[in-house]
């Protein structure tokens, strides 16, 4: 479970990037985080995964605080950034191995998972290539494989569909459904509202650092489309 309690963060003591954010993501949920550019989605995601500090509040991952039990929390999570800035000088397989080493994944598990996801994303034959030779989409696939290779309980993704080809988008959705069945958490931000509408059990909408709506898809959109609700809130 991810519990976000009264989280606030400001930049330079002035601009409030996040203002008193409160919501919970339960086990076995695909949770969509929606908002326009600069609304605070990435700031909150980076705070959840322990990359950014926040000024007030608390974030708990399966009951452990990201502030005090940082390493324990990180071990349970995998993070896929919006812009995959990977180690360009490494081969793809070396990068995935490096991430697996950090999560202390056994050789058997990593071999099984790398094989499974490399085949799924159709980059098995490119794993020996340097990452610097990859396109944005291919880098995103490497980031996804390295995130999934250590069987995380919580998968956090920032705009995971950007740059992916339609087949890869479909595969990511499949992975999400698979994790859902295993009772794991998938938390992701997106601009693609129909994807969020089809995939998410619950969503949160953020505007200028403030949470404006959170709940099940039905609670948030009622009879309208998610796009309509989102545009109305933005108006």
């Amino acid at each position, binding site marked *: 479970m991810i519990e976000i309690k009264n989280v606030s963060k400001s930049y330079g003591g002035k601009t409030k990037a996040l203002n008193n954010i409160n919501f919970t993501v339960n086990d076995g949920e695909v949770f969509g985080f929606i908002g326009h550019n600069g609304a605070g989605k990435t700031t909150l995601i980076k705070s959840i995964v322990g*990359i950014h500090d926040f000024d007030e509040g608390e974030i708990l991952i399966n009951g452990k605080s990201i502030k005090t039990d940082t390493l324990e929390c990180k071990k349970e999570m995998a993070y896929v950034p919006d812009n995959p*800035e990977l*180690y360009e000088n490494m081969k793809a397989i070396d990068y*995935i191995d490096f*991430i697996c080493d*950090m999560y202390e994944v056994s050789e058997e598990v990593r071999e099984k998972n790398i094989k499974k996801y490399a085949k799924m994303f159709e980059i098995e034959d*490119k794993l020996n290539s340097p990452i610097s030779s990859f396109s944005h989409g291919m880098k995103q696939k490497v980031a996804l494989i390295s995130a999934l290779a250590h069987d995380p309980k919580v998968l956090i993704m920032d705009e995971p569909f950007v740059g992916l080809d339609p087949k890869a988008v479909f595969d990511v959705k499949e992975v999400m459904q698979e994790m859902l069945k295993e009772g794991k958490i998938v938390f992701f931000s997106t601009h693609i509202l129909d994807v969020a509408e089809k995939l998410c059990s619950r969503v949160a909408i953020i505007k200028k650092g403030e949470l404006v709506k959170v709940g099940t898809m039905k609670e948030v959109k009622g009879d309208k489309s998610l796009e309509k609700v989102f545009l109305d809130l933005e108006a």
Partner: protein
Amino acid sequence: MKKYISLIKACFTSEMSLFIINNKNKNKKQSKAVPIFIYCLIMLCFFAYANMFIDPLKQSNLAFIVLSLFVFLTAILTLIEGIYKTGSLLFNCKDDDLLLSLPIKRSTVLFVRIFKFYIFELLYNTVFMLPVIVAYAIRVDVDWTFYLTSFFMILLLPVIPIVISCIIGVITSGLSSRFKYKNLVQIIITTIFFVGLMYVSLNLQDIIKRLTENASSLNEIITKIYYPAGAFVNLVTDFKVVDLLIFIGINVGLFALIVFLISKIYFKINSRTKSISVVYKKDYKVKTNSVMNALIKKEWKRFTNSPVFITNAGLGLVLYLIMCILVAVNFDMFSGLIASQGFKITEAEVVKYIPIVSVALIAGGSFLTSITSSMISLEGKSFNILKSLPVSTSKLILAKVLSAVLVMLPFIFIGNAILFIKYDFTILQMLLVLAVSVILPLISELIGIIMNLKYPKMDAESDAEVVKQSTSATISVFVGMGLLGLTLYGLFKFLKMYGTDMTLLIITGIYAVILGLLLLYMKNKSVEEFNSINV
């Protein structure tokens, strides 16, 4: 014209942060105090050196020699700096895609790159030259023409070294871009150029002798060796507007010519340096490593992938090895050096001091090599990968320090082995020298990482900007030089008072304490600084 100004402004935004005092941000203001203090200290040192030289020369009306001497030395330093960073500054920059897609000429992109290089060298040269000019103006009776000439000299001093560096950079990158292992070839070619420069420097006496055979005055000699130095002295001693205009014209003309010529092949070479092919191979093998091993391997891959990073780190270490070999092979030169320090000793006694010399050499090799001072900055945007890992921050920092020390240790141990084999060391001396061999690189690399965490530069466009031009790298080099000076001073002082073994013990003890303090600082303050870096 407006768009060119915008372009230059955009390219310099991140570079100039050190020179903009932001009153609203107290922390940033404090963090600028250290570099400003160090730059002031260097300027004061140069002011003192210049005064030291001017005083005796003034009596024989030859004070102007100081000006040409410092111009020459600064130009040589700029050239050495430039040789191995130009390729990385001009080609394969991160903002290439953006700049080359803009509706501007390719030569303009190249101009911006060289201009950025020029501005950095201008600031670097000013730190050395300004105190000399001020000292000269105070000690020698000068008029307004001196100030005018000096102003133009400072402005134009970096031009010729930059032009030569650019030519070498283009040759190096152009040739290496044709090969599969571009980085390796670039390192080899750069090393060849560098060894060539070292050879010329070592044989400078012969070259000067040949040049001066037909020279009738000292000024003529200087002019023949390095035109700007001679021209500067000519203008200071006998100012003529025409000469000043010729001087400006030659420098500006050379700068424009090099931009024009390189722009003809710039795009072609730049495209070739970027070409990396995707390898299609179904077989791959997973390898399991411990967390620390994996982190060290990752750092090594980053290190071996950057020619400018390798050549920068390698210089001090190679010089250290050469010095060890010289001490082992050329004993006469070495004993002469000892005697010059005021030690009236026999040859047998000189051998007694070899362990001290060994420590002095290790200090030189260690303190003049700072690999970690750019390791945080080189992470760039991928820094967030490190921050998201389930690994403690102190372990992440320590891995960087250890990986750098592991690069240095083989060189230092080979140097030790040469001296251990050639001279008789007691067991205690060997143990102490080996202890110093580990402690000093650790100190040097801890200082580097501490500085880089204090002054990170996460938005650099090329490796050279971080490795050669960043605040942390510059401060680390000067702190290293200071520590080297203190070590040498301490060694000679203690040696005179306590003898070889006791001096070794004291020095090892002092550095062990410093190492402990630095580790403590790293575990607390540096961890905080690491966590506060937001990319």
